[in-house]
């Protein structure tokens, strides 16, 4: 048995964007012929690592070697000529071209332009052109989509476009193939086809590195898995070992949260009382990707419900669908007895349905004061606005200190508080919060969620979407778990806190 050769060796890779360390001293070595999974929670640096490996982003420090040769500061087109191919999170096919033409572009990867030869129709050039087309057709057959070869790329279904993108990458004759979330938005059948294809690719001698959020898929495909968190390598091991790794579990589900699970006052909707919000068979798409599948649940008045799940599960899309930012593909949403699935955001705000978006969404060049007052844009009651303004600053004393500062200059935690303060000015009856813990230290997460709990106790209904399961389950009454667009678990928060199935929803298995 031959000793496995290292095909890719990245050492001590660091990438800083301003003050943020997207990658921090990551060592990443892949053996030839491996299928390597690359996973990690939101913002852990996976795509940045891909971008560094493929030359789109220059590392701040560190070195990268391909088959023993240094490729550290090479440009993307040079790297693809050296044998590294990739696909992207957002598919970018050449939309107006046919499938065959798309792949032919890839097949000519290492050829030279040869303007004179092209114009003079030299036989050597013509022979090359034929060779490109033949290569393209071969890859189409390999991937299994040769029937589509004359279709225009943009007319294809999403899953088919993904396959075209993979065939295109293969046509560059790579040694390594980097796949960035190839299974996003695919249905189970498509995912099986994809998994079989990836194995076929490996059998052909190509090393595969795979970023994926579908844990079951990664666990079944990968030989080894590397886990990143906050830009650092957290663990690197076989799939089963990773699933049991304590640090990994904590990174995904959250740990170190010192809060007491509150006594749940509710056990779901009591008989006779109408829920304040209910979703029925909601199907949602984000662009071409079918993200939400048949979501049905309801929230009682005054409840605090959490919706937890891994990255890419569809949580943000769900909130955006509820708050009017995205229209659902099918299904209905009722709020206070009215059908709202096609209502615009501003009409919903008037009715007290307020959404604190992912990533805070504050207005960076407006001051703290102006940001807060924008929340009251639709209100006309001057006295009420002034009173609420004071109340909000009492809740968040740190904002009062920074009242004249520009929103963009606040720290992550302060921005989150600002976003919530702003939302409160809209007089919410139902407050939707999208991942308030993102990018915050554990202490700040506690602070923020404490405030959310206070807001809830003032009599509002809260729907909290979170990746950090432990933190969310510590404050909520009841929770749902969402996995790849479907609701898979439901229960009271304290029950779920101790339910091992939650871990499985995050880490497959």
């Amino acid at each position: 048995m031959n000793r496995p050769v290292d095909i890719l060796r990245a050492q001590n890779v660091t990438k800083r964007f301003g003050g943020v360390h997207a990658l921090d001293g990551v060592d990443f070595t892949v053996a030839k012929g491996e299928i390597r999974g690359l996973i990690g929670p939101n913002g852990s640096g996976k795509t940045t690592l891909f971008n560094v490996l493929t030359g789109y982003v220059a590392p701040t420090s560190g070195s990268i070697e391909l088959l023993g040769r240094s490729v550290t500061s090479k440009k993307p087109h040079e790297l693809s000529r050296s044998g590294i191919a990739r696909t992207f999170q957002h598919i970018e096919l050449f939309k107006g071209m046919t499938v065959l033409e798309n792949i032919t572009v890839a097949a000519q990867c290492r050829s030279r332009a040869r303007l004179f030869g092209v114009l003079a129709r030299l036989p050597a050039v013509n022979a090359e052109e034929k060779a490109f087309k033949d290569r393209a057709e071969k890859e189409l057959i390999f991937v299994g989509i040769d029937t589509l070869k004359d279709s225009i790329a943009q007319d294809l279904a999403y899953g088919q476009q993904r396959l075209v993108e993979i065939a295109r990458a293969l046509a560059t004759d790579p040694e390594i193939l980097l796949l960035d979330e190839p299974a996003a938005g695919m249905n189970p059948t498509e995912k099986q086809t994809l998994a079989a294809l990836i194995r076929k690719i490996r059998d052909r001698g190509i090393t595969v590195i795979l970023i994926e959020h579908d844990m079951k898929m990664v666990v079944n495909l990968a030989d080894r898995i590397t886990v990143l968190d906050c830009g650092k390598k957290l663990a690197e091991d076989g799939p089963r070992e990773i699933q049991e790794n304590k640090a990994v579990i904590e990174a995904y589900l959250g740990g170190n949260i010192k809060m007491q699970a509150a006594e749940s006052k509710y056990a779901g909707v009591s008989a006779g009382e109408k829920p304040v919000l209910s979703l029925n068979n909601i199907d949602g798409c984000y662009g071409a990707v079918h993200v939400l599948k048949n979501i049905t649940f309801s929230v009682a008045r005054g409840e605090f419900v959490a919706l937890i799940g891994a990255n890419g599960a569809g949580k943000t899309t769900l909130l955006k669908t509820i708050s009017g930012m995205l229209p659902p593909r099918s299904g209905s949403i009722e709020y206070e007895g009215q059908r709202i699935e096609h209502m615009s955001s501003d009409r919903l705000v008037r009715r007290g349905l307020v959404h604190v978006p992912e990533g805070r969404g504050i207005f960076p060049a407006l001051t703290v004061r102006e940001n807060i007052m924008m929340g009251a844009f639709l209100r006309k009651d001057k006295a009420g606005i002034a009173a609420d303004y004071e109340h909000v600053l009492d809740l968040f004393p740190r904002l009062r200190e920074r009242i004249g500062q520009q929103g963009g200059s606040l720290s992550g935690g302060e921005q989150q508080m600002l976003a919530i303060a702003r939302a409160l000015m809209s007089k919410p009856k139902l407050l939707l919060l999208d991942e308030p813990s993102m990018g915050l230290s554990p202490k700040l997460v506690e602070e923020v969620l404490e405030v959310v709990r206070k807001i809830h106790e003032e009599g509002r209904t809260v729907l909290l979407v979170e990746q950090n399961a432990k933190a969310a389950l510590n404050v909520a009454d009841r929770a749902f778990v969402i996995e790849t667009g479907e609701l898979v678990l439901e229960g009271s928060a304290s029950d779920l806190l101790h339910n091992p199935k939650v871990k499985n929803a995050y880490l497959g298995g």
Partner: protein
Amino acid sequence: MGFLSVLFQLIIGGLAIGSVYGLVALAHSMIWSGVRVVNFAQGEIFMIAASVALMFVTGEWGQTLPFIPSAIIGTIVSAITGLLIYLLVMRPTTKWGFLYVIAGCVGVQMLLQNTAILIWGSTGRPFPAVLPMTPISVAGLLIVPQDVFILIISLAVAGALWLFLSKTKLGTAMRAAAQNRPVAGLMGISHVLTDGLTIAIASAVAGFAGILLAPKFFVTPQMGSLINSKAFTAAVLGGFGNIPGAIIGGLLLGVLENLAAGFISSQFKDAISFIVLILIMMFKPGGLFDAGPGRKA
């Protein structure tokens, strides 16, 4: 006339013209930062406003009106024209790519210019000055009152706009929508409102600039084209999308041009704006006050 007084005159004159460049540049930057489109026919709005105002000042349309009501009518006409151009031409073409926006706007330019030729003829007509155009002596320096008038009024307009944008609820809402459109929607800030207001106000400002500058030069159907490239350079100088930067860029450009015309040659004047443009593009494409990467719509 000493060197200093010549210099002073050139600078004042440059500031006056520059302030007008600045207003049109402001219109470009405002529309870009708020609605993410560029109206290449902005210069024609400038021209239409001046022509319409002239029409009322000279009584071509029957009634002779004094300067202020004529100016108001001209400004309102520019706001309406700007909105029409946006709705009919820029909205559909923006979806298809910049090429089509330019093609559409250039078509609009030709249309407006030729319509102006049809209505008012292609020869230049003088616009009666509000203040004397002859220089008067103040403390030994020669100053043209009309220039001072233009400068002061332009800065006043820019100042009023700044007040509106920073102190009023509506103005703040417009800024919010420019910074984060989808989230502004979550606050109930309708983008139909903010887009419409942005275009109307910006076009009105550009039109008013035309009325201000009209007395210094003849009102011709082609005056818009001349102003267009200067205004663009000023906007790029200040950072495309940077509203106060646009005014400063305009003032700077006006002064540079006048100094070049005075000390080198008047033909060089027009070349200055091209040279400045290329230098900025190559060394500081975000403008002189580059604050970092721009926001993506």
